[in-house]
């Protein structure tokens, strides 16, 4: 289809909601004809299988494969060996999986986890229900930590000038350096990350005492500098906020993605969705004002797209409307007055149970204003409280600027980079790599031989968090221990051990962490230690709340001038690879980003309006230029993006990441500046004419627009609770299935789902699901057993956004079973639709006949059977599938069987909640419930009894065992008509 036609259609369609009610891609909304063709292909994967061979070649191959088919069986099964212990450790039988409580710091967040180990191998991460910031949930990055541990590209030995060296050699070097700086430490600089660990804070204190002239900087590419500076403005001291979303009735997010990228998201999501129960008649209301759609915006009852630079004006207008003394909006933000009035009225009405938050792209004064609004609304102490962080909280940007200045002035003699990658992840105008080359002594500790490693004389492998002792403090202030679950796989050291080398600290790793907590422990250190390890959280470790009045003086100092009407450039951490540190993690690379559904790349998000003005389409190469910095990026037209804002995600364009993570996407750090790391004005864009191939999943597995996702307003629900229900299914010609002891079923509450993708990744980790790569994803061959579909509703400029996880429906009358010629997919007596890999001959009839498109075929040998370390990661209870075999969600049959055997052995029934599927366990909002749907007392039966319950494509009479609860929105009554 030619470009002008599509654009003309877009032009006429923009702002006109006569297209389909729910749509997945802009092309669908504007009904681009070739798009229809694509959708009508029953099996889009096959469209790429256009045979490159001619008829004769095909016959030749056919003959050869027939002739050689028997040879595949020409080997006997390998002789296995049994290798018993010489002395068995005095513990439980080793074959049962064991769970160890630990803590992970992933993607800027800290949460307690349980690490599942099989025969001493960590294979899976679960959330720790006892940890306040996890409550049993995990984020995708936490799930992917096991793959990071077993990553074959991890750095395995110290390198000196790129040549393998030993730790003994390094120890000499460290001693020499320590002696060199023994006098006062001037010239000795440490560049670490954010300090979340009390033990690391203690080591830092010891370091600064030992080397008083030394400087220690905390640099994080994804920093909380604006929150820090905002707290300084408001309170005069850096205080952290602790939010209580369960107490909040009205929430206003000023570009604050508290469900996604802000620390504490797991807990916030649980508390927030807990306050949205239509059946229980409790329902909060969320307003989101943001430039680029986020998970929070997608869940909001009102999401108003607004340029990031205007969000401050909006907050001022709101403050003025609420009558805050000293707050005057010099100009209008452009949000309609009626919306502002409704919001102000809502906040007023819910004084004491409202909450205002500002996000990391907002300048400090907006953060301070949010604190002021919370104080004025009486929310402090109820929905938000403040505490003084026990570890030093310093500005990342200021630290980096100071270090750059020192490096440029030649004052840095030795630079120790502790687990960071500044040579890649520093803003381009810092010219970090260039300055680093001039530092006489450069040392780097890290998990990978990354960009910084190759720029340093010494690279030292860091132990993974699952291999070392430490402690971490979560964003609510509670601390917990990090315990190793395996001895280091390689010759690596933890951050603590490396620092100890310089400090001459000869204590063991565990003793060092224990020493940090001696004061807290009291007399019984051993008892305290064991209790803390078992619970996975240290009792009474969270600092108390502090009352801190907001000093409104900042209002006078805030920069008055609004930015001109130029394009603004916004930076955001990538939803999966974060700041680039997870670039070599295939699971995270292939996890579709929640809003764009892109994999393996980042993009520049532009609004449909801007795309229209510049004639841009998805995948067009765009030259971005801001204050002399420039790069080229693929375009993604993002419905709901503020008209004049362009957002780029960090974390791609890695030059030295490993076999998975290099040469993907573009490097957004090349546009970033030290002065404005999150937002810049005066962006110029220019279409270059080149095209990028983008691997997106948004068009895959379409269900032909048959209303798969259903949503209504709270008012709809009150009037007609069963608004989402279909008329009862007609009687079936197929006989009813014989009933077993249990009938497993699943219920997915779309009202709770926030679309984070944790379920997809948890499933991947649990079920040995392979990674296929960008090219295969482009062909629609991603293997995820549970996908999260994203739908838009309404106009392209400000659509409502819905997410819907889709696993196998386990239909009672499963269309796939009818068509399998070899009986490879059959029903079992407990309602599961099972796939027998050994019978499957790969006809793919089942997948063709599946109306839900949940079956996944191994077109190629996707499972890596060769790499040794990856074998150790796999779940031993799940078969690893080979090429030519169909697979799909099994409802975690291995977990059902484990529970079955345990219960049958004791002659009892499986209790409700004894079987948690992997997706269910990981879900931050408990949107997925699983259990015996035959028993009316189980949680899943209760959930399915809700009037909101509906089945996907019920008219097909497949009688699925996975059903959904319709989503409910709670718009302000005065604003009913807008998004």
């Amino acid at each position, binding site marked *: 289809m030619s470009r002008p036609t599509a654009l003309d259609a877009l032009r006429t369609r923009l702002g006109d909601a006569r297209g389909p009610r729910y749509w997945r891609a802009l092309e669908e909304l504007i009904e681009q004809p070739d798009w229809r063709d694509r959708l009508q292909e029953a099996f889009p994967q096959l469209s790429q299988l256009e045979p490159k061979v001619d008829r004769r070649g095909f016959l030749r191959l056919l003959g050869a494969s027939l002739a050689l088919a028997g040879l595949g069986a020409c080997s006997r099964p390998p002789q*296995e060996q*049994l*290798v*018993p212990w010489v002395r068995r450790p005095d513990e439980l039988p080793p074959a049962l999986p064991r769970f160890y409580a630990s803590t992970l710091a992933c993607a800027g967040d800290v949460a307690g986890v349980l690490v599942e180990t099989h025969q001493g191998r960590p294979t899976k991460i679960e959330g720790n229900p006892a940890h306040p910031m996890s409550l049993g949930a995990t984020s995708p990055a936490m799930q992917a930590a096991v793959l990071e541990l077993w990553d074959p590209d991890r750095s395995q030995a110290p390198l000196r000038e790129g040549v393998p060296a030993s730790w003994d050699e390094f120890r000499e070097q460290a001693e020499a350096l320590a002696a060199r700086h023994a006098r006062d430490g001037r010239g000795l600089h440490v560049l670490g990350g954010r300090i979340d660990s009390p033990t690391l804070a203690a080591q830092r204190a010891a370091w600064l005492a030992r080397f008083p002239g030394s400087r220690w900087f905390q640099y994080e590419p994804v920093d909380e500098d604006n929150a820090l500076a905002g707290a300084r403005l408001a309170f005069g001291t850096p205080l952290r906020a602790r939010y209580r979303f369960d107490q909040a009735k009205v929430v206003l997010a000023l570009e604050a993605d508290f469900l996604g990228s802000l620390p504490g998201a797991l807990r916030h999501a649980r508390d927030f969705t807990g306050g949205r129960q239509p059946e229980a008649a409790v329902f909060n209301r969320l307003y989101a004002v943001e430039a680029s759609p986020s998970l929070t915006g997608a869940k909001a009852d009102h999401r108003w797209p607004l340029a990031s630079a205007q969000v401050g004006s909006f907050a001022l207008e709101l403050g003025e409307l609420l009558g805050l003394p000293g707050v005057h909006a010099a100009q209008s933000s452009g949000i309609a007055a009626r919306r502002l009035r409704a919001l102000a009225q809502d906040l007023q009405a819910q004084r004491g149970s409202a909450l205002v938050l500002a996000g990391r792209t907002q300048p400090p004064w907006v953060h301070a204003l949010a604190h002021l609004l919370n104080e004025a609304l009486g929310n402090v102490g109820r929905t938000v409280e403040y505490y003084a962080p026990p570890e030093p909280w310093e500005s990342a940007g200021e630290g980096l600027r100071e270090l750059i200045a020192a490096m440029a002035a030649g004052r840095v003699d030795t630079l120790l980079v502790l687990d960071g990658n500044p040579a890649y992840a520093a803003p381009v105008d810092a010219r970090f790599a260039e300055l680093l080359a001039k530092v006489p002594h450069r040392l780097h500790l890290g998990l990978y031989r990354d960009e910084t490693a190759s720029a340093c004389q010494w690279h030292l492998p860091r132990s993974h968090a699952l291999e070392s002792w430490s402690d971490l403090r979560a964003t609510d202030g509670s601390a917990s221990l990090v315990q190793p679950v395996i001895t280091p796989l390689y010759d690596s050291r933890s951050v603590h051990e490396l620092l100890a080398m310089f400090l001459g600290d000869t204590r063991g790793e565990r003793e060092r962490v224990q020493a940090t907590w001696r004061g807290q422990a009291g007399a019984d250190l051993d008892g305290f230690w064991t209790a803390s390890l078992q619970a996975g959280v240290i009792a009474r470790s969270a600092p108390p709340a502090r009352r801190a009045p907001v000093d409104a003086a900042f209002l006078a100092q805030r920069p008055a001038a609004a930015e001109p009407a130029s394009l603004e450039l916004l930076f955001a951490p990538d939803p999966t690879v974060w700041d680039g540190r997870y670039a070599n993690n295939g699971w995270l690379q292939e996890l579709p980003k929640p809003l764009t559904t892109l994999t393996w790349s980042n993009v520049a998000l532009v609004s449909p309006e801007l795309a229209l003005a510049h004639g841009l389409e998805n995948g067009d190469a765009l030259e971005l230029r801001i204050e002399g910095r420039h790069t080229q990026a693929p375009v993604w037209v993002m419905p709901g993006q503020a008209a004049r804002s362009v957002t780029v995600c960090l974390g791609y364009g890695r030059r030295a990441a490993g076999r998975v993570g290099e040469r993907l996407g573009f490097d957004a750090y090349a546009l970033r500046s030290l002065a404005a790391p999150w937002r810049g004005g005066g962006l110029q864009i220019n279409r270059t004419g080149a095209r990028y191939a983008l691997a997106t999943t948004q068009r895959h597995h379409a269900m032909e627009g048959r209303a798969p996702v259903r949503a209504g307003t709270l008012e709809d629900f009150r009037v007609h609770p069963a608004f989402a229900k279909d008329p009862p299914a007609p009687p079936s010609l197929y006989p009813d299935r014989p009933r*077993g*002891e249990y009938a497993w079923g699943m219920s997915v509450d779309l009202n709770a789902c926030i679309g984070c993708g944790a379920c997809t990744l948890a499933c991947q980790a649990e079920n040995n699901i392979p990674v296929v790569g960008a090219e295969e994803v482009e062909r629609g061959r991603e293997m995820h057993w549970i996908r999260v579909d994203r739908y838009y509703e309404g106009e392209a400029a400000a659509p409502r956004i819905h997410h819907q996880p889709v696993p196998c429906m386990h239909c009672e009358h499963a269309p796939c079973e009818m068509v399998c010629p070899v009986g490879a997919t059959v029903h079992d007596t407990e309602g599961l639709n099972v796939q027998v890999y050994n019978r499957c001959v790969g006809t793919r009839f089942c997948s063709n006949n599946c109306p839900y498109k949940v079956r996944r075929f191994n077109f190629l040998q996707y499972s890596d059977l060769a790499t040794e370390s990856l074998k150790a990661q796999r779940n031993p209870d*799940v078969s690893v599938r080979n090429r030519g075999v169909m697979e799909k969600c099994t409802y975690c049959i291995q977990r059902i069987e484990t529970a079955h055997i345990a219960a*049958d052995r004791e002659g009892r029934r499986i209790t409700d909640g004894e079987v948690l599927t992997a997706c269910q366990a990981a879900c931050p909002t408990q949107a997925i419930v699983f259990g015996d749907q035959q028993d009316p007392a189980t949680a899943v039966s209760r959930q399915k009894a809700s009037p909101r319950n509906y089945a996907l494509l019920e008219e097909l009479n497949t009688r699925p065992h996975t059903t959904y609860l319709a989503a409910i929105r709670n718009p302000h009554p005065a604003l009913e008509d807008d998004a």
Partner: protein
Amino acid sequence: MSQIFHPRFGLFVKLALLALLILASAAVLAWRGLTNEQHRIGEAVEQPVPFSHKHHVGDDGIDCRYCHATVETDAFAGIPPISTCMTCHSQLYTDQAMLAPVVQSWQRGVALHWQRVHQLPDFVYFNHSIHVAKGVGCESCHGRVDRMALTMRTQPLSMKWCLDCHRAPQKYLRPREQEFAMGWKPQDQEKLGLALVERYHVDTRRLTDCSVCHR
């Protein structure tokens, strides 16, 4: 019409056919030889130590669970650590050449490598504990271990063989007290079996579900 083929041609044809036959049988035999199981039924498996179940079980009367300790709790019955051997053999037969590998393993801390006798494919998830809990005796699958001087397989361990019992467990079940006994014979297996299916809550509806053994 003259003869097309020379009379001696018949011999060539016969020889060629014979050669083809020999070649085909050789190929089949070679293929059989290459692909059959490592150890045939009833063929003793060579082990680093000629461990005799006959001696330990038949003569000494040691209970199965003394060595295979996790058979009631775990998927895997358990191969005893050397320390278990040493409970007796630190005192008995310590100087026997036959026992030397065990003693060396104990002294040097180097594990022994036994050859696996009962081997299932990787896509089968067999669990000992549930079978023991439901009244399947050791003997039903492992044979008269108490008579084996060297351990061998007595059953095919094929899926058909598994299904024989999964389809009609009453033909094989025993009371739990008799599970570890060797050579136990009931008076009326069919009647007892049906009673045991009832007593041990064997859900026969699902015993032939694929998901019971394959995941």
